[in-house]
């Protein structure tokens, strides 16, 4: 518990340092999200693909982009890529486990409030969505998407450990990642014959308790797994 307390205390410095900018960003993206969500009924009626991509971006990539540039992953000397705080805290008497937890707390602050707000807005804005979902299935729907956020989105938090990467290799990996997501999405559409959000709504409607259970397990496993990955990567990396 002391580890989490110290991690939260350290995370507080970074979060407070740019709080005005972060709140402005949150307000801006809330408005953008609200405008976008007004067309959610179209998605439900016509399987409007852009919504799936928007959700994937919001739950996986968006928290990393929300962070102020000064705290984001950046290129240091040579081919070293990392978040400056990871180097700064290792030069202080801060255990690596605390560094990892502080990065996860910061990532959570940039993830969950906005994602939850979006999920609530969806309920407020879309009448079709309200009609098709019960309180229990809505809970399951929220749990599924939070599980996506932790299982996939927190890979971004873990990647903040950084390391020595060849820039060309990094660019190639990004291209493969985008291609991979595109192939997965296309295959999903072809196999399931419906969009990802639609599919998760179906899961939440048909198997709400199972969805909640699996989602909670995924959240627990993902949360711990990515922390272990980040700690190992910090131990492996050369911050020279």
């Amino acid at each position, binding site marked *: 518990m002391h580890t989490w307390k110290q991690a939260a*205390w*350290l995370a507080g*410095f*970074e979060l*407070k*340092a*740019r709080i005005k900018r972060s709140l402005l960003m949150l307000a801006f993206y809330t408005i953008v999200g609200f405008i976008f969500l007004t067309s959610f009924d179209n998605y439900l009626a016509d399987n409007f693909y852009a919504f799936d991509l928007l959700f994937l971006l919001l739950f996986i990539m968006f928290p990393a982009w929300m962070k*102020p540039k*000064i*705290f984001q992953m950046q290129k*240091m*000397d*040579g081919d070293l890529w990392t978040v*400056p*705080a*990871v*180097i*700064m*805290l*290792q*030069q*202080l*008497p*801060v*255990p*690596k486990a605390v560094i990892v937890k502080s990065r996860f707390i910061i990532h959570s602050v940039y993830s969950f409030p906005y994602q939850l707000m979006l999920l609530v807005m969806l309920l407020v804005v879309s009448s079709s969505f309200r009609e098709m979902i019960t309180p229990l299935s809505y809970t399951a729907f929220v749990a599924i998407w939070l599980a996506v956020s932790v299982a996939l989105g927190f890979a971004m938090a873990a990647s903040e450990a950084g390391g020595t990467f060849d820039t060309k290799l990094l660019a190639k990996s990004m291209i493969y990642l985008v291609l991979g997501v595109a192939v997965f999405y296309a295959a999903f559409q072809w196999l399931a014959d419906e969009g990802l959000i639609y599919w998760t709504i179906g899961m939440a409607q048909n198997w709400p308790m199972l969805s909640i259970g699996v989602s909670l397990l995924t959240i627990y496993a993902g949360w711990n797994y990515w922390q272990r990955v980040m700690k190992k990567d910090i*131990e*492996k*990396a*050369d*911050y*020279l």
Partner: protein
Amino acid sequence: MPSWIEINGLQKSLDDFQLGPISLAIEPGTITALVGNNGSGKSTLLKLVMNLANADAGTIEVFGETAAGKDESWKQKLAFHPQKIIGWDAYTGTTLKEMISSLYGEWDEALFERMVGLFDIPLDKRFGKLSQGMQQKLSLALALPRNTEVLILDEPTAFLDIPSKRHFMDLLIDWMDAKERAVIITSHQTDDLRKLADYIFVMRDGKAIGHYEKEALLESYRRYWLDRLPDGSVPGEMSRDRQQIISGDPAATEHYFAVQNITVIDHAALDLEEIIDLLLK
């Protein structure tokens, strides 16, 4: 007395650079200067001590703990002032002080305030907005008051103006006198080395050239002005120029002069800069 830091056979390869093997012990009550040409691996060595990178071979023990081990509590006993400060840009001096002071049980608030006053540091400005010199002053004001047993300073005076450098030297000497401590310092400023160092560890292109006691090192080199230069090589001879010979073994050189009836017109000790220059050639 056991060493506080013990480095044994340390090696690290980075692209086309090979550091080591390096062996070095840091004892309490001493100031050790790491000296070397640019790119000799001084900063890399310090970062390895701080466990910021993994060694390929060899060991580093800090207060009996393996630096790369699970127990990271030894970091409480070390304060590290890096050459390039990373991650501080978004924070004001006040915030950095709040963060750093809380992490060290022996934080000396009075010393911090004294240094802030002496260096005239604006604590309300973001670190990234400060000039390089002011950044260095703030970083030093946040290093010394940690009151750790060991202080590691990587080029601490590179951007300081002359009065600030003098103030810092005086503060560091007082700080060393107050308690049993040890300092590892890298510097290209021979003035720093002359005033501060007890030991000099010389490195060239990643390799250790030698670990010397400063006073002994100063006594081990001498320049001789002669009435005539002998044709052959002189014992201890490091270099010769017109009627001068520089010797790295004065006793052997003087004995040779006496035997060969060579008159020494004058002789003088070399200054530290010249000796380091010779060692790095």
